[in-house]
């Protein structure tokens, strides 16, 4: 089951604009290596789930733990197929996480550098944004 909020205050939200860089959630906190976004964009719940499965399938073999640092808390509406325009806003269709440049999307703990690189390489092919691998900052 893909990630989605349990309860929301408002079912539908406006699209919005993604401006600036990430000022929070931009450091590796739980593991030793992280996958950081370079672009801004929306990552859907199904994409996060696909990344989780791809990463876990790989990481199970080498020993390690995956942390997901983003959560899809923004609803995206869509109109049913073959309907005319108008008649109000469409119904919620799926959930997305808003990602700014610098956001750490995933982290890996307990794995070697090569294993983490291979793992993130598999994950990066499933993402709609450019990413790069980062290490925990020295002294933290």
């Amino acid at each position, binding site marked *: 089951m893909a990630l989605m909020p349990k309860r929301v205050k408002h079912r539908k939200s406006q699209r919005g604009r993604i401006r600036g*860089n*990430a*000022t929070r959630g*931009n*450091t590796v906190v739980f593991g*030793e290596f992280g996958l*950081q976004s370079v672009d801004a964009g929306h990552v859907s719940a*199904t994409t996060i*789930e*696909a990344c989780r*499965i791809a990463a*876990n*399938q790989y990481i*199970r073999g080498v*020993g*390690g*733990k995956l942390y997901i640092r983003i959560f899809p808390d923004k609803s995206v509406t869509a109109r049913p197929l073959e309907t005319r325009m108008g008649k109000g806003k469409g119904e919620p269709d799926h959930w997305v996480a808003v990602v700014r*440049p*610098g956001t750490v999307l995933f982290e890996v*703990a*307990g794995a070697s550098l090569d294993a983490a690189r291979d793992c993130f390489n598999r994950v990066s092919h499933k993402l709609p944004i450019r990413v790069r691998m*980062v290490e*925990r*900052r*020295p*002294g*933290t």
Partner: protein
Amino acid sequence: MSTLDVIAIQPRTNIGTTASRRLRRDGLVPVNVYGHGEKEAFGTVGADVASAIARSGAKVVDLKLEGSDEQKAIVREVQWDTFGTHVLHLDFMRVDATQRVTAHVPIHLRGTAPGVIAGGRLDHHLHSLTIECLAVQIPTEINVRITSLKIGDSLHVSDIADLPPGTTVLSPADEVVVQIVEPKGEADATEEAAEPAGE
């Protein structure tokens, strides 16, 4: 302990966001020096020097401000840019060599645990330790040997013995630093593998 040379700080008169941005464009990093009952000082260091300080993990450095003697200071805060590539700002707090201070020191794991060789997973929970010691004795890192940990074993803060003399640990003694957990069972693996087929 610090292995850096004495850091010369050039004074700056213009403070604030705009002035700081201008300095960064010129390859400088704004720094603040405060504490020890003296007036705060605003200055700059070169971007390469700031980066060296931040990446060395040094806790105590020697500063030389213009018009004053050499003094010791703790690297209180390091501000990085979004991508963690450039240092934006440094805060130094003046200290006396005989003063006891609180510091967060990174924990470094040494050796390979037999539990990991046996197929267990290493969970590193606590990455830094809060300690109190003399300002000049703050270690750059604390080494923790994990060569005796088997599957199911855990190492707590109270088990860390390799500390410099006169150091008091302030982190809770029962906090887990590292543990070796059993790998996921075969049942979980089958369940995970079945999920993509269902999508």
